[in-house]
């Protein structure tokens, strides 16, 4: 079986071949001997060579990317189709991909505490845009990339539902 897997911003060609009671796995041609056991829906035990890893893989449903935890280190993993089409782990929001407008939405129901940007303003990556109070905390929503504020839909004091569009950055 063959997969195109993006990890750490780099795509790898992964080939899995079952060989008796182990798996021969190659990543871009580099070979690994892997002994794998599934513990439950999210947990695998891997012995790669002799190195032992307990790994969780979740969520396992599209469209979110997989979070693979090697020990406690989280790694974002995305599957792509063999011909480059994302067929697994395809994201719903194209703003994440690196081009097109960023649409900043409320990640959870809450109250807008502060709006920190105005239409037309230039912003840089990780600049705070809106502060939402939810789950007993004030949470800053930030720009993912540089850009210019195209739309501001958030008002201070306003209650918002999860998914409500707050800011669009061009």
């Amino acid at each position, binding site marked *: *079986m*063959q*997969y195109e*897997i993006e*990890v*750490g911003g780099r795509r*790898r060609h*992964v080939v*899995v071949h079952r060989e*008796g*009671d182990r*798996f021969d*796995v190659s*990543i871009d041609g580099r070979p*690994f001997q*892997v002994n*794998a*056991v*599934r*513990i*439950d*829906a*999210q*947990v*695998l035990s*891997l012995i790669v060579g002799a190195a032992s890893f*307990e*790994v*969780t*893989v*979740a*969520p*396992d*449903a599209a469209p979110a990317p*997989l*979070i*693979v*935890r*090697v*020990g*406690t*280190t*989280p790694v974002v*993993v995305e*599957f792509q189709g063999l011909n480059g089409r994302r*067929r*697994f782990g395809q994201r719903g929001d194209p703003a994440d991909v690196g081009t097109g407008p960023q649409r900043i939405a409320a*990640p*959870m*129901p809450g109250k807008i505490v502060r709006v920190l940007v105005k239409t037309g303003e230039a912003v840089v990556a*990780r600049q705070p845009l809106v502060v939402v109070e939810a*789950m*007993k*905390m004030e*949470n*800053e*929503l*930030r720009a993912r990339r540089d850009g210019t504020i195209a739309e501001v839909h958030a008002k201070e*004091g306003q209650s918002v539902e*999860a998914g409500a569009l707050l800011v669009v950055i061009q």
Partner: protein
Amino acid sequence: MAPSFIVKKILIANRGEIAVRISRACREMGISPVAVYSECDRAALHVRYADEAYAIGPSAPRDSYLRIDRLLDAARAAGADAVHPGYGFLAENADFAAACRDAGLTFIGPTPEAIALMGSKTAARAAAIKAGVPVVPGTEDPLAADLADDEIARAAERIGYPLLVKAVAGGGGKGMRTVTAPADLAGAVRAARSEAGSAFGDAAVYFERRLTRPRHIEVQLLGDQHGTVVPFVERECSIQRRHQKVVEETPSLAVSPALRAAMTSSAAAVARAVGYTSAGTIEFLLDEDGRFYFLEMNTRLQVEHPVTEMVTGLDLVRWQIAIARGERLDVDPASALTPTGHAIECRIYAEDPDNNFLPSPGRILQLRAPAGPGIRDDSGATAGLDVPIFYDPMISKLIAWAEDRPRAVVRMRRALGEYLVAGIKTTVPFFTWLFAQPEFIEGRFHTAYLDEVLKARNGRPFVEPSADVEDVAAIAAALHAALSPRAAAAGSTAPAARPWKTQARVEGLR
């Protein structure tokens, strides 16, 4: 002579880990624990753990856990004779304590009068001054609502810059502003008043000098109904993110025996001055010169009470209940001040540390807490539960004890490495990073340390996977897909696109 109450059934007016914690103390005392739950908490562990459980309304706190009437209805329906408020929600609400008393229920906490008094920051400061305990220099009374801007400026001059504008009814950094220059004063006072008004229903503010690089040191104490007050060895809570404690430990590296004696006797003096009963905590700021200042009193059990329990061996919740039923506090004051070893607590939250600590609500698909020597995990979560969007997203409090601080630090690192969770993001990678920082390991920190270093990091991931770990992740993802029953059945190259059918089982796949 204080009255003696029989307590056989306690309504726990809270949720999550602290409700479970209180239930455990009840069980060990032969008391029946009664839970309440909001709509989204029906399946929560605190409900499953209790003897009885009562629905008290919709998920929003104001419709359930903050509804005094519904809590009292539940207590009445259960035939409870006492109420434990936990922390948060109504724990420091004098009206709730009074309503319990009026309903003939023993409130497991201080009197409504003590709650009300210490709930006003300016009144609490006055009480401390009266008890001879230093307070941070500041205005003794709230600023009058109609005070003119120039009078406000004169009051600020007397304190000196930089200063803090603080809400009288404040907490958690709300209604608080730092002012470094006179020009910003008027705007900061307006902003703080507005924030305080909407957060606490009380717009009153006052000034305090802002200490540079202080530590947050607090003293846990217990007071009984017979006038005995016992203070405990201090807790160090300087590791804070935006005024929220993140790590707590005891004892503090910054506190010498002489300073401990001075701070704990000051704390006891404040508590005695207000006739305090039950568990409470006096918070101090400790400046770089080793001077300490009363900051405020928390008239309830603290989130971080377990670290004190681990180094003293006492059960603070059991003592709260014992005090409420009129028992005498027969704790040896010397041993309460003499820690056995060192304990550290990490608050494990469902937050994404690599995305500015944004809450990460959702279904907990897997959860395996650390265990073994010296580890305590106080949790209200289990696999199969959702982290609700309505409350503090705490998963558990992970506590490590060892003979000394260096060993407690390595033990906590070991325990963090055992924390297995899937389905939500947690702050575990953040703690893994923090517990490797030289400043943290050497104890060189203050209340602004974490915010400063987080700002400097500017969102860099806390744990960056090595190339080897990326390879293992790729292998795991490929095998996860390859081992899917669907993929196996079809002999297909397509990875699984649906959740597993899982009847939790080990498939030998070699």
